[in-house]
């Protein structure tokens, strides 16, 4: 069972002549915890945009859960992402005008299938938030009152709700201090394992790689001459 399979992928911004990403082969089995190490400008964000179906490569195949995203329309890819992916950013993952609970449930608002899979949305949200150690008293508060560590854990709850097959985390710990970082990783791993999701964790920080079963270095994977920004 393959979570992600990239084959001979070329991507460039259309007016430019040079590829910014060229990956001959990338294979990630389901259930893996994968660490992709790359500094900024190594094509990290582009790779994630391809896997998430935001961008389509000029050439090659991007298969996610045995579905070739390059054959899907942009709208279909958005639906696919809503249904099967959970995404966590470095920081500012939450919409400032929604409450904590509404932010968690946002993942199910653009996919009826994912919502259906959750069943009781409130129950599922509360279970996740409990496990992620977010106090019940904060549920209806504005997310602006949360600490960065709490914000990142709410983002995990949003990514995980509805048990998506793939979780993508882009530098999720870089805004956290050491104590919070360890706590965050522990909670993330335990939730991902519990749901049997595939985790793709992207970071420049090689020290984190010890926690993962598979480590991929992006500068070895990407054959395109990258322009560091």
């Amino acid at each position: 069972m393959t979570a992600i399979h990239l084959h001979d992928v070329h991507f460039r911004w259309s007016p430019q002549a040079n590829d910014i990403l060229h990956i001959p082969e990338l294979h990630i089995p389901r259930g893996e915890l994968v660490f992709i190490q790359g500094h900024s400008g190594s094509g990290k964000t582009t790779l994630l945009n391809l896997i998430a179906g935001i961008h389509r490569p000029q050439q090659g195949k991007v298969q996610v859960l045995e579905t070739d995203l390059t054959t899907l329309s942009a709208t279909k890819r958005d639906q696919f992402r809503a249904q099967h992916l959970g995404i966590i950013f470095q920081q500012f993952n939450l919409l400032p005008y929604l409450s904590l609970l509404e932010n968690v449930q946002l993942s199910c608002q653009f996919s009826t299938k994912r919502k259906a899979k959750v069943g009781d949305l409130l129950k599922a949200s509360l279970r996740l938030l409990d496990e992620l150690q977010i106090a019940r008293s904060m549920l209806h508060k504005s997310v602006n009152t949360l600490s960065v560590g709490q914000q990142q854990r709410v983002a995990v709850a949003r990514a995980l709700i509805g048990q998506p097959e793939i979780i993508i985390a882009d530098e999720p710990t870089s805004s956290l201090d050491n104590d919070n970082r360890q706590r965050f990783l522990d909670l993330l791993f335990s939730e991902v394992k519990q749901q049997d999701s595939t985790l793709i964790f992207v970071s420049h920080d090689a020290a984190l790689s010890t926690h993962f079963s598979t480590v991929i270095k992006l500068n070895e994977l990407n054959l395109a001459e990258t322009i560091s920004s």
Partner: protein
Amino acid sequence: MILLKLAAKSIWNRKVSLSLAMISIAISILLLLGVDKIRKETKDNFINTISQTDLIVGARSGSVNLLLYSVFRIGNATHNLSYQSYQEIAAMPRVKWTIPISLGDSHRGFRVMGTNQDYFRYYRYSNQKPLAFKQGQQFTDLYDAVIGYEVAKQLNYQLGQEVIIAHGLVSTAFSLHDDKPFKVVGILQQTGTPVDHTIHVSLQGIEAIHVDWQTGTRSAISISAEKARTMDLQPKTITAFMLGLERKIDTFRLQRQINQYRAEPLMAILPGATLAELWQMIGQFEKVLMLISGFVLVAGLIGLLTTLLTTINERRREMAILRTVGAHGYHIGLLFMLEAIFIVAGGCGLGVVLFYIVQIMLQSWLSASYGLYLTISLLDTQQWMILGAAILFGMLLSLLPAWLAYRYSLQDGLMVKN
């Protein structure tokens, strides 16, 4: 739908800046509806200056001129018509009533009009309202006068006040009919028409003050007020007269008959038609006002656009978050459009509420100071169209931030811009 909820919450989150934009739209809507209301009320009021009068008859001149001096007391008649012609026409079988008018004199800037008791009986203004007395009664004696509401108010006249009429329209010491003073016996209620600015006396009164005058100057032999009472005061000429018919259907026939009157050149006009013609000429300002108000609305909408556009860069992170949970670029565009529409629609709603509040507040003041009675009614088709046009225009303008948001969200993808 989730987008509606998101748009509402997002607006609420930025309520201070957006409510300012909304208030500026509300004020421009208030202005547009207000100007529209005032122009309709003024026009109604103007067209209804005189009502139920089928024809106005005067010496042959221009129809607008005849209307101006007979109804609005503006300008002068070039010729008078003979009292005999008046009596002949008044006696025609289809004629129900007539009101003779004799103009030419004034009192401290207010026109004096000679007429008879039929004036108080038949004259109608603004949807068939008869004249009513605030104090006193109509004239009975030769030297009685009935003054309009504004005359009493501005000159601070009470019943019993002595009124000296000046010959012509300018009061100089030489041309006062000071030998024959009149006495105020009645003060009319406010009508919001030129009646408020008129001093009414009997035709015989006008005749009496002129018995010892010849071609505009006092003659050598003066005749006292008491002596004048004993004389024959049947007028030889009058300025114009109004008439009402038994049946409206005869209007055009009688008009033609009067226009072809053999004894002297006469002209009969339909007051409604001539008022409409006059409004055409002087009513241009309303279009200018509407145009200006329209521009104020455009300025308000552009203000909103500015508010939306300045935040668009700050909100690129928000777009990325929505994209991760599966929103498409068009969802993001739609979200921005919905926000704009909410605010414009909210501004329209608030504007309508303000419009009614202002009307209720101004109603009594307008009626007291200008005699303009505001009828508070539901929005008419034109006013709904103003609101519709505002929302439509707001939607059109919202396409710009929507399109930008759509472009950014497709371009940025998951990349979080700070």
